[in-house]
């Protein structure tokens, strides 16, 4: 066996893991989920909930899987009577002060207390006739509510704020069964990464005001996506309910964002549900735009491109997929091409506890991808060049102040009343990030795929598909393109 590897047995299954691995992690490899609350792989070990008690052969008493490191030949049993009894005992203790208000609790359906009680808890309580602990709901920060009655004091939020966000504004206040999560009297939970405490909370004690009573967990469809909030490229899950994005949550990605996303990214989804979308291709007839079908729109674009020569300028969004950006360049392959994008900049907000993780100043997901394809940041120069270009293509850049004497083709999701693109010869409706599949390249050059979470409205199609169809018809498409 390789050096530094440890062999052990968990519930009869042999596993080999690196030395220093915790039993609870080794168990995952054996396909065993040891119930737990305080343990979280992204936080320092606390060992306080005592839920992950397991039996280890030759150990004098039950051990917590989250704070026990593997040893060679260790035999771990999670399903023996003493281990199950101990965990049932913990569940009973956790429930005596926990309200059974699951029907009105946002966490219901994705609550670890519900899950494990259902799995191995008692069917009835023995805490009859005593009042449960009661404390009023508290507002911790701009988006976080604390419901102390549901709190099981796992301290994940406290440890997150202390060790990961490194702004220790939360603590455990009081002792014994009077304990609750306290916030510094002069502080608010307004760290740019504070929202993660809501995801970390295993029960419905820390809630997002944004998601409050918005949907039940079991109504949500979950789609793997990449955050468009900045150039960091955090892995996220888009939660949709009835084809509306209602929540953004972090998706674990140890190389980029570990288990976290920032509050900017978390709240950066409403635009995906905009109602004022372009739903059909528009072509200019008699000085005004008229709705039409894709065939006529394509024919118009092709006739423009075939009848033009010389300079072409592409003004693109750094939020477009790499596929769309490449296809847009390919479509204009016969021209003297200039491509540029501009990025909205904001303040950088790092998460101190995770190396190389921050809300980046560059508030767009695919600047790097655009550069790789050949677009530059010389946006002003490109705007200038557009004035005398034969063809100008604007891709998903609705506020682009474009002016041109040539033909203007606009691919976008929206078209404002005063938008310069109103002057376009052709307007093609495209899908937004939640409605298509594509690739972004983050600031570190990492190419990441995102998937379709909901259908595009009307006749809108993914930009990459639209552009590749036209490039094929023009004969400029590369071999193998157009399969998206």
């Amino acid at each position, binding site marked *: 066996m390789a050096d530094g590897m440890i062999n052990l047995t968990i519930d009869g299954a042999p596993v080999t893991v690196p030395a220093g691995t915790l039993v609870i992690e080794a168990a995952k490899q054996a396909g065993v989920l040891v119930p737990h609350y305080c343990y979280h792989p992204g936080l320092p*070990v*606390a*060992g*306080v*909930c*005592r*839920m992950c*008690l397991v039996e280890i052969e030759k150990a004098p*008493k*039950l051990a*917590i899987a989250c*704070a026990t490191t593997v040893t060679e030949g260790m035999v771990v049993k999670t399903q023996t009577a003493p281990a199950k*009894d*101990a965990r049932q*005992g*913990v569940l*009973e*203790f*956790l429930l*005596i*002060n926990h309200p059974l208000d699951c029907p009105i609790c946002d966490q219901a359906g994705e609550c670890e207390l519900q899950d494990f009680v259902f799995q191995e808890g008692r069917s009835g309580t*023995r*805490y009859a*006739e*005593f009042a449960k602990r009661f404390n009023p709901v508290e507002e911790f920060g701009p988006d976080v509510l604390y419901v102390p009655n549901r709190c*099981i*004091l796992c*301290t994940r939020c406290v440890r997150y704020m202390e060790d990961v966000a490194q702004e220790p504004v939360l*603590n*455990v206040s*009081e*002792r*014994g*069964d*009077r*304990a609750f999560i306290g916030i510094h009297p002069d502080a608010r939970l307004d760290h740019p990464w504070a929202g993660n405490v809501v995801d970390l909370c295993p029960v419905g004690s820390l809630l997002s005001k944004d998601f409050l009573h918005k949907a039940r967990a079991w109504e949500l469809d979950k789609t793997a996506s990449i955050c468009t909030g900045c150039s960091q490229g955090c892995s996220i899950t888009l939660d949709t309910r009835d084809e509306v994005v209602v929540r953004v949550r972090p998706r674990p990605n140890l190389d980029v964002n570990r288990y976290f996303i920032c509050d900017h990214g978390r709240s950066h989804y409403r635009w995906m549900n905009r109602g004022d979308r372009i739903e059909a291709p528009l072509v200019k007839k008699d000085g005004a735009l008229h709705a039409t079908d894709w065939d006529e729109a394509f024919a118009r674009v092709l006739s423009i491109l075939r009848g033009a020569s010389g300079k072409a300028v592409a003004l693109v969004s750094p939020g477009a997929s790499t596929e769309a950006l490449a296809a847009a360049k390919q479509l204009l392959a016969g021209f003297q091409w200039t491509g540029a994008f501009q990025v909205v900049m904001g303040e950088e907000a790092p998460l101190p506890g995770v190396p190389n993780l921050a809300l980046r100043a560059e508030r767009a997901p695919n600047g790097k991808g655009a550069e790789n394809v050949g677009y530059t940041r010389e946006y002003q120069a490109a705007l200038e060049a557009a004035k005398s270009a034969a063809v100008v293509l604007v891709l998903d850049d609705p506020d682009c102040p474009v002016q041109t004497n040539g033909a203007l083709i606009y691919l976008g999701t929206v078209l404002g009343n005063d938008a310069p693109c109103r002057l376009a010869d052709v307007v093609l409706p495209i899908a937004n990030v939640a409605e298509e599949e594509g690739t972004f390249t983050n600031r570190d050059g990492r190419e990441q795929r995102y998937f379709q979470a909901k259908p595009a409205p009307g006749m809108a199609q993914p930009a990459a598909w639209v552009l590749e169809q036209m490039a094929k018809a023009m004969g400029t498409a590369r071999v193998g393109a157009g399969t998206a």
Partner: protein
Amino acid sequence: MGFPHKPHAKETVVLSQYFGDADARTLKGWTKRGGYAALAQALKMDPAQVTEVVKESGLRGRGGAGFPTGLKWSFMPKEKKKAHYLCVNADESEPGTFKDREIMRWTPHALLEGTAIAAHAIRAEVAYIYIRGEFTEPWTIMTRALEEANAAGVFGSIKVYLHRGAGAYICGEETALMNSIEGKRGNPRIKPPFPAAAGLFGLPTTINNVETLAAVPHILNRGAAWYKGLCLSNPKSTGTKLFSVCGNVARPGNYEVVLGFPFKDFLYDLCGGPPQGRKFKAIIPGGSSVPILNREETEQTLLDYEGCVATGSMLGSGGVIVFDDTADMVYQIMRLARFYAHESCAQCTQCREGTAWTTKIMERILAGQGKTTDLDLLLDLSENMTGKTICVLSDSCAAPIVSGIKKFRGEFEAYLAGKRQPVMAG
């Protein structure tokens, strides 16, 4: 013991020799009585040699666990790469225990001397003496003694600091005490790592009880063989031990006897037996955290680590709590449970919720509203609270419940059957 009683003939006064002697509190008075000779001698010895002497003496920790002191010292890294710390646990909060308080009140220099010797033995530059917050008089006396000792430079290069607790029982748990010194909430830490590997500020640390360290100068002065010879029963329990006696007893107070002393003689001869016209009913031999003994068990017990275990309890800290036949055991046990519920640090689920639930059931029984299933429920909860948490606070709450129900079930049942006048304990 010297104070407030005259020593009984059967006592062996070593630590308590100067209790009541105010002159022994001063550096001058202490030196006149032979103080700081052991420290001077120790500082000339190799640290490993000092540890060896203490190991040889058989001295065991007097805080409750009874771990061999020399062995504990020898766990410190052999090769010193980082700073070492010594912590002195003077957070004596165990209900029924008040021996360290008297050591600090009357012989502060004995503790300081023992502290410096131990610091030398474990090669610690700095020693912290963590004194219980409520100990105002010991605090003043220790502060004065430390000032005197520092002014006289008796510690050499060792720095000794006093740190005052803020009143949490749990800070007497060794790792909670370290967290408290570090300025954090006094929560016990998961072990391993043990303090000798990563203790105070993450550095190798040894922590000893006040009484343990106060015995060390005597061992160096008179030799390990002398100390080892102080033994009446099991050779693993050597030396003298202070017992704090309180409750229904004719002469409460601190008594110092050689380990292995018969409990029966201790209670009847030294402490004068029960108050007139009464009989002993139950005894807690080692502070509130250990199982309760009934009279028969007590009278067979020998007062040493093994002797108390043999009759089903523990020597613990030596805080003897005595109940006579007028005591209501259900009420007494409820008070103990309430104490632990109040002092639980709230980290571990079983302790946070279990101690409070246990207390509520005990109060319900006392109020005459108990259910027939309550005793089984208490025992089941106690089982869930034993051996499953970071520290032993929840075990300590369970111990008197389990032993109480086992030995005094009749009293519980009398409440349950409505044969006893309800007590409103709230």
